[in-house]
């Protein structure tokens, strides 16, 4: 019964956050700049959580995530701009095609481990970017015009679905299988877990949500260019996950919020922006090498207050 109660608290909290922000936007209290920052934070959280599933849960060090963001962005833009189909459909299609791209990339490259996998995914991410760079249908290097369709409502619904699905996946036998791959792949294999299957599933699921984020991203900026999806974008996402703490979903959410806010406010100081941003990262890594949250979740902290037995976050 406890887990059901926890779920309803989560739903109520989400509705409250959504409602308050929506009211502030409608009432004109939140100016468009801040509203847009909130949407951007939402997109970054989706990206961070989707990569968290691949790196934090399954332990597969992928640094080509911006490639799947690009796939989602371009596919959804094509659907709304070229075929004039509705936006939700475009988001879904972007996610599905990104997931297929994830399968295509994941099946061969997930045989690799550690550094080699990182290099392979980095390469695939760049390939995807260069493919879009050379397709005239989507504007090549000059990019593609996209109408502004992303709203706070769409962003929040996608964010809610992403976090719910990934949490549910993690807290099940399938998520445990992924964690066991991260913890000790040889032992996981010896316990009857098809490690390749779970690596590919986690990778495809992560790519799906990156694709959804891509759809939101494309329709938030009026124009998308292949240059937006270079490896620096992949590293931005990677930093959210590592800074938040590998294996902690709430950690990656907090890190995504924190870093998006920091980099947004630093836009006023373009000369020193990257210096300050880097200093923040260096300081966090010096004093919290395990990331902001380590492997713990926010809910674990509540559990500690209630009593020692509430500490088990998995499988509940």
């Amino acid at each position: 019964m406890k887990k059901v109660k926890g779920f309803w608290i989560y739903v109520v909290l989400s509705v409250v956050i959504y409602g308050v922000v929506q009211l502030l936007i409608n009432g004109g209290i939140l100016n468009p700049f801040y509203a847009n920052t909130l949407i951007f934070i939402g997109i970054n959280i989706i990206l961070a959580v989707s990569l968290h599933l691949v790196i934090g849960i399954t332990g597969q060090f992928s640094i080509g995530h911006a490639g799947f963001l690009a796939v989602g962005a371009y596919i959804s833009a094509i659907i709304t701009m070229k075929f004039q189909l509705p936006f939700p459909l475009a988001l879904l299609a972007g996610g599905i095609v990104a997931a297929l791209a994830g399968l295509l990339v994941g099946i061969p490259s997930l045989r690799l481990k550690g550094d080699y996998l990182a290099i392979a995914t980095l390469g695939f991410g760049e390939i995807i970017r260069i493919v879009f760079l050379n397709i005239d249908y989507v504007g090549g290097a000059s990019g593609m015009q996209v109408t502004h369709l992303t709203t706070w409502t769409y962003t929040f619904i996608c964010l809610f679905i992403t976090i719910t699905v990934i949490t549910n996946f993690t807290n099940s036998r399938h998520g445990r299988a992924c964690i066991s791959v991260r913890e000790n792949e040889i032992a996981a294999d010896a316990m009857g877990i098809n490690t390749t299957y779970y690596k590919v599933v986690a990778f495809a699921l992560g790519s799906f949500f990156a694709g959804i984020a891509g759809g939101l991203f494309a329709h938030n900026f009026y124009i998308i260019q292949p240059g937006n999806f270079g490896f620096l974008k992949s590293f931005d996402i990677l930093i959210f996950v590592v800074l938040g703490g590998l294996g902690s979903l709430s950690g990656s959410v907090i890190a995504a919020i924190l870093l998006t806010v920091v980099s947004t406010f630093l836009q006023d100081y373009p000369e020193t922006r990257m210096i300050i941003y880097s200093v923040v990262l260096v300081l966090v890594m010096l004093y919290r090498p395990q990331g902001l949250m380590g492997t713990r979740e926010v809910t674990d902290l509540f559990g500690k207050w209630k009593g020692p037995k509430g500490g088990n976050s998995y499988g509940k």
Partner: protein
Amino acid sequence: MGSNPLLKVQSAGIQFGGLKAVWDFNMEIHQGELVGLIGPNGAGKTTCFNLLTGVYVPTEGDISLEGQRLNGLAPYQVTRKGISRTFQNIRLFNELSVLDNVKVAYHSLAKHSIVSSIFRLPSHFSGEKEMEEKSIEFLKIFQLEPYLYEKAKNLPYGMQRRLEIARALAAGPKLLLLDEPAAGMNPQETHELMELIAFVREKFNLTILLIEHDMKLVMGICERIYVLDHGQLIADGTPNEIRNNPKVIEAYLGEEAAESHAESSPN
């Protein structure tokens, strides 16, 4: 003894490039037996385990469990066929709780799909509940129940060993392979381990193959022993036969010792 062996290995071997690690390896294990595999360091014992569990694919020969061929199956498939193992250097899922370590082993016995877990369908809840109940029941048998929510890495060494055996058994094996279960244990812990092995064997009607360096343990509980040296079987038989086998003594102590043993043994 039954006519059909549970595990049958016929002249299996593996070659790494030009190096023959193990060759012409023959073994028959019958239902309910407790068999030891011994040999000096580097003899190829763990390689044999890796052949049996599918980590390595044998370059020659045949391995079958209950008449089903195992060659070429991936390790997870071999486990589902009924062979599970522990490791020489403990390989627990350190960041997972004791309970979750065992739940992972129950993974392939549960049925609920990814879709049912994502949408939290009833089959997810019933499946997870069953896994949890079974795992707790299991940990009770191994007296690890007080540590259910403790991270595996925080357990003391002896308990980690016990948890690893518990986890291997939770996967529902017909044949359990133990790779040096007593490594790094003091005599008291080794004694407890011997009792534990005897206990689980009876309780789960298990067949066990174990690698061990502790001769007291091997001679004490094994009914039959295979001896491996330089990748080849040099002897097999009851503990007594092995103890007096000149080839075995030579492998362990060198030629001179074997000769002096042969001279002294008639007295």
